[in-house]
């Protein structure tokens, strides 16, 4: 180690130099403060022994300057001084000295102090090096996140998040909080929105966004309903994410053809439909995505009737968990209060004339953010906040569909196809996507595939369950029986060793589109139609949603112009109308 001795007395310098060299130190020396600074810069000693009283520049000043130059490097300075008054000694430390010793000093004590400071110096240098490494690492990670963000931006944004009816508050780094928002227009008219929140933070939390957006955009563009999209997302995430990582998500479909909103909510805490004079909560009824296996997953959607300009409000837990200076959380109650405040304003303004009504300035989206800011009194907190307000502007959404509809224009033509599946292929083939695909190739996306899919699925299930497998749907009435029904279905399907299901679809062009004639026939004994009708009755709840058992025949009746069964109940013929006008 190199030590710098600063003393104006030549004898003192010589004695110290000889003494320190004995211990193997390299020694350099200076006659005054000014020279000390110069030698410090040219020789880079690791420790300095400093006299106080010197000509040209004293030890205090030199110490102050050297400490300034050394910056973050630790260079221990021990004062050796003849001064003994407390004020002078405390001044040594004040200017940046690390220790002091009064002359005449004990050599053993001096050596001990040098050793001690050498240890401190080593410790400091280690910590300093680690700090430096950490800074480099952070900088690297920052750059990496920046690159990742750009990549993700281009992957996540082919949708219509910038549409005029969507107001969004999303921090640029939201992805690394795990928050994801996707929106896309359906080719058949309507809008899909996904609001998601992955577990955890950082890059790991964002990785799931890749398969997520892929499935969401691809399937929406193909005209699938969110029912199938949510199934597929769950399946993909379950397959690709490790246990313990999942996606809380709310999928919303604004169906402009039927003026209904369909939603599937798994653990998004704040999801509401604002209907002007009332607020409906879009309750979380499912586990988050990526947890349940396909056989336990529920794709059940809730359905609510909507009117023009109703608003969907979605938020992840960032708002609800935002804290004020007292450590209180913003919470669900305050959030709901925000929504009802706006309702009141709208109510009172609706009594005024139309022109005044248009001027009503309170915007729900701004109002929520302003209330949050007022609560936290801290703008920065909104960095963790992801909030979306989507206006169900039905006409505008339909415009979006036509604008974005780069789909080939198909005209309605005459065609027919027939399929016959025998018992063994029924076990492994789901005919519904197959038929959808064929329809897509022939007639493009004009045919509303979600309704048609429902019709086809129900028809196929009826043929299979009641025709080939001879299951009795009355067992489905109780929850226990419901499970029993599906257990029976599985075992009977496994044992099935004969029979077939025949299906035929043909199109007759009409003025606005076409009539599909759909025939399903099975080799079973048939069943009592009137009985089935009663048991699978469509149950409309008061709030307009359809209950879990509300599937089956009445649903087919609802979507088809006509449904005719033959007497024995093993052949059904339906007419499904579709239109090229949206």
């Amino acid at each position, binding site marked *: 180690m190199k030590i710098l001795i600063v003393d104006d007395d030549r004898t003192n310098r010589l004695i110290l130099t000889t003494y320190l060299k004995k211990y193997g130190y390299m020694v350099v020396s200076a006659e005054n403060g000014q020279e000390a600074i110069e030698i410090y810069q040219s020789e880079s000693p690791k420790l300095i022994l400093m006299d106080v009283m010197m000509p040209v520049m004293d030890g205090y000043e030199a110490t102050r300057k050297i400490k300034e130059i050394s910056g973050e490097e630790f260079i221990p300075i021990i004062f050796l001084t003849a001064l003994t008054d407390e004020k002078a000694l405390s001044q040594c430390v004040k200017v940046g000295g690390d220790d002091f010793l009064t002359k005449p000093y004990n050599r053993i004590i001096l050596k001990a102090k040098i050793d001690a400071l050498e240890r401190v110096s080593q410790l400091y240098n280690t910590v300093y090096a680690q700090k430096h490494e950490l800074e480099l690492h952070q900088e690297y990670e920052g750059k990496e996140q920046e690159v990742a963000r750009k990549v993700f931006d281009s992957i996540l944004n082919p949708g219509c998040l910038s549409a005029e009816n969507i107001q969004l508050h999303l921090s640029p780094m939201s992805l690394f909080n795990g928050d994801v928002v996707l929106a896309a227009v359906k080719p058949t008219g309507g809008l899909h929105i996904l609001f998601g929140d992955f577990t*955890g933070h950082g890059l790991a939390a964002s990785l799931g966004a890749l398969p997520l957006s892929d499935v969401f955009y691809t399937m929406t563009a193909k005209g699938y309903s969110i029912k199938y999209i949510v199934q597929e997302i769950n399946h993909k995430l379950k397959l690709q994410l490790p246990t313990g990582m999942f996606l809380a998500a709310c999928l919303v479909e604004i169906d402009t053809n039927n003026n209904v909103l369909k939603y599937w909510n798994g653990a998004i805490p704040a999801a509401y439909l604002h209907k002007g004079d009332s607020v409906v909560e879009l309750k979380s009824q499912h586990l988050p995505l990526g947890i349940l296996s396909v056989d336990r997953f529920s794709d059940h959607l809730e359905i609510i009737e909507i009117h023009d300009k109703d608003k969907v409000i979605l938020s992840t837990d960032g708002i609800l968990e935002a804290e004020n200076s007292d450590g209180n959380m913003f919470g669900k109650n305050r959030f709901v209060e925000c929504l009802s405040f706006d309702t009141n304003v709208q109510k009172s303004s609706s009594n005024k004339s139309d022109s005044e009504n248009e001027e009503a300035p309170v915007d729900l989206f701004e109002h929520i953010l302003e209330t949050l800011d007022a609560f936290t009194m801290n703008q920065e907190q909104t960095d963790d906040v992801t909030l979306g307000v989507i206006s169900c502007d039905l006409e505008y959404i339909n415009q979006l569909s036509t604008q974005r509809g780069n789909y080939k224009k198909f005209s309605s033509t005459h065609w027919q196809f027939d399929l016959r599946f025998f018992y063994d292929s029924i076990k492994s083939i789901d005919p519904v996507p197959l038929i959808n695909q064929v329809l897509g190739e022939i007639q493009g996306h004009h045919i509303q595939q979600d309704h048609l899919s429902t019709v086809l699925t129900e028809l196929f299930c009826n043929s299979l369950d009641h025709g080939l497998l001879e299951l009795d749907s009355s067992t489905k009435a109780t929850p226990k029986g419901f499970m029993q029904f599906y257990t029976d279905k599985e075992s009977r399907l496994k044992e099935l060793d004969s029979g077939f299901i025949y299906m035929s679809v043909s199109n007759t062009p009409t003025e606005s589109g076409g009539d599909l004639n759909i025939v399903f026939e099975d080799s079973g004994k048939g069943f009592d139609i009137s009985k089935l009708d009663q048991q699978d009755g469509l149950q409309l709840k008061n709030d307009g949603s359809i209950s879990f058992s509300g599937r089956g025949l009445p649903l087919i009746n609802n979507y088809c112009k006509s449904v005719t069964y033959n007497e024995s109940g093993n052949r059904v013929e339906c007419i499904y109308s579709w239109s090229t006008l949206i």
Partner: protein
Amino acid sequence: MSITSMVDGNKINIIISGRFDFSNHKEFCDAYRNTPSGGSNEFIIDFSTTEYVDSSALGMLLLLREHAGSDKADITLKGCRNDVKDILMLSNFDKLFKIP
């Protein structure tokens, strides 16, 4: 925040005090890791002194569930305070765990 575990035959009690989030990941895993995996154990997680759970905590519960035999797992989350229960119910965890 602290996690204590007690093993009594095939019953494993885990008490979680304070905040339950990603910082407890190692501690929580340590609490059950040495118990036999599969559906032979009964787990009781005591949440009566838990102040807060975040989504990583939910993830950890899923890891425990996998360790304890997935669909065969017998795990009770007992004594949840209202706000903790709200988070568990919002995520519909009552479909995977017993939440009395």
